[in-house]
């Protein structure tokens, strides 16, 4: 991945070096996986994922799209918790807020002219801004460790309580009724304006490809960001906040920004979820919902973005399978998995496995 994609004649020297600097950051100390073997494996994975719809039925494809919807929230939590060392229980607050925002905006302005994408951007911005606000109060208030978990958890639970009591015609924003405990529904899905008829992204193959592209772009972008100075400082703060501060970094600012980024990613998940299923309910911010991202990220592995992504997809898929066989037992298995991971493989099952594979490969090479 060291060669820049453009020829020197096309772009000026300075911008080429910027591009190659960022591309070089696809590999670095903060992310696992380097060298051609890793990227070939990744490309094969993406290729397999692209071919998958050709061999599968629409229902399964819709399901796979559903898994991908959640990965953004998982990656955001991975950054906040794994890289920055801030355990947030409240990612669902930003998820739910953005979901509602998407619903309110699209119901009011409709789906024409690609306005749904504007609604998406707006919802993500609202979720991210809310996260920045909460983050400001927490980090500039010097709250640490376990207290952050409690504050974030309280935020999401209070939002749930608030949305659950918005039943009745007086709770409306424009044309959008909030509908209390039953939640909002009937908002349009994402729509791509197209000459000769808009493409409506209902749960299916088209949405699957859009989401796959978004996941890949988001994953690569986060890899670059994490290996950039920003990511290095985050890890430095996680390892030793006092030392990072002594070295002249305003750790409150970095933590707030990381928290905002995590919140924006959770908001992206929330928006996509609402667009995918065309409904959002207060229980998406409840205690059980808030626990799930923690389970995915803890079990998958939080210290590495690749482990977080792969682990989350595996755990979500596993959870879905369990739900088919007996939904009531699925949560028990999740809880047990969480306790087991914490006790046996605190770095996460996938991360531990990836680490082991990496070490074995290196040993065989020697």
């Amino acid at each position, binding site marked *: 991945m060291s060669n820049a994609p453009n020829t020197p004649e096309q772009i000026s020297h300075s911008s080429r070096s910027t591009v190659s600097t960022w591309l070089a950051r696809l590999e670095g100390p903060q992310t696992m996986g380097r060298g051609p073997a890793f990227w070939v494996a990744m490309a094969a994975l993406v290729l397999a994922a692209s071919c998958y719809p050709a061999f599968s039925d629409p229902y399964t494809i819709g399901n796979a799209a559903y898994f991908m919807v959640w990965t953004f929230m998982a990656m955001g939590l991975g950054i906040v918790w794994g890289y920055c060392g801030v355990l947030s229980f409240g990612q669902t607050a930003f998820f739910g807020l953005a979901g509602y925002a998407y619903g309110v905006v699209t119901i009011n302005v409709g789906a024409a002219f690609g306005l749904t994408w504007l609604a998406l951007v707006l919802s993500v911005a609202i979720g991210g801004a809310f996260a920045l606000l909460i983050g400001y109060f927490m980090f500039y208030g010097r709250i640490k460790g376990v207290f952050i978990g409690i504050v974030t958890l309280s935020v999401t639970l209070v939002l749930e309580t608030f949305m659950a009591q918005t039943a009745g015609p007086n709770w409306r924003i424009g044309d959008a009724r909030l509908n209390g405990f039953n939640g909002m529904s009937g908002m349009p899905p994402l729509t791509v304006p197209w000459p000769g008829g808009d493409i409506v992204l209902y749960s299916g193959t088209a949405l699957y490809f859009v989401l796959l592209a978004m996941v890949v772009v988001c994953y690569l972008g986060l890899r670059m960001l994490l290996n950039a100075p920003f990511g290095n400082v985050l890890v430095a703060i996680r390892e030793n906040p006092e030392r990072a501060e002594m070295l002249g970094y305003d750790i409150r600012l970095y933590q707030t920004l990381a928290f905002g980024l995590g919140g924006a990613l959770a908001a992206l998940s929330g928006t996509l979820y609402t667009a995918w299923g065309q409904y959002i309910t207060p229980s998406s911010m409840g205690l059980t919902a808030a626990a799930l991202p923690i389970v995915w990220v803890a079990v998958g592995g939080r210290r590495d973005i690749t482990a977080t992504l792969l682990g989350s997809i595996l755990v979500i898929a596993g959870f879905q399978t369990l739900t088919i066989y007996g939904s009531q037992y699925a949560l028990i298995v999740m809880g047990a998995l*969480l306790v087991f991971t914490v006790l046996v493989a605190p770095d996460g099952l996938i991360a531990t496995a990836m680490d082991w594979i990496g070490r074995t490969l290196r040993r065989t090479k020697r």
Partner: protein
Amino acid sequence: MDFFHTIFSVMYQFGDAFAFLVISCAGLAVIFGMMGIINLAHGEFIMCGAYVTSAAGRAGLPLPLAILCGALAAAIVGIVVERLVIRHLYQRPLDSIIATWGISLIATQGVLILLGPTMAGVGTPLGSMALGERSYSIYRLVLFATSIGLLGSLYLLFYRTRFGVISRATIQKPAMARALGVDTRRVYGLTFGLGAGLAGLAGGLYAPTMTMVPTMGATFIVESFVTVVVGGADIFVGAAPAAAVLAIIRASLTAWYGHLFGQIGLLVAVIVVIRVMPGGLSGFLKRFQR
């Protein structure tokens, strides 16, 4: 006379909120203050106490005894959980949060599967009394008295008994306590059991006023976490005054704007308090002691 009635009504609202906050946060505050562990299964220990109390009450036991049964059952479960899981996580407080959350998921769902979505409760005892135009539940007044009694007995336990001295020594200097022959693992186990038992007591005390559902713990946890966060690490100079302050906020907001705004007011209070005094009330008050 009307004036007196209004005063009483306000005091009643305040006392009710205060009792709820103190009773529901006591177990959490003991475990957090003494061991530095945030027990996210707190709500489930409360649920455990409430269920056992209701079962015992319906089996014919008088209510106070049934409540004691509930507290005891929760304490035993707490000691078992400490031995199996928490014990391995003292060096990793963040992981202990995750583990207790896992336990909470298992407990809520397990109870749902085993006992169904709801269970028959016991009615609120003692009836009510009328004063002016309004009537007041006597049981709520008893709860207020109990919350004061609870704070008093915890104070006696931690500052006047051998267990209290040993447990505070273990908290402050574990290595020194061990060198002096204290079995610190046992102290931690007992402290966690005490916290779980207090949670069970909360469940038992509020069981007659609530519907028995597996998720009932969730109604307690926001309030108790908020109280502990505002209070800081110490129960007596932290959680108790925090409960008083929050009770005033909640009672007045609830009286004027309804239950929801009471809860939102609590949240806003927390965010403002931690912004102004990062160590919580106890950190703030302790600065004056020096």
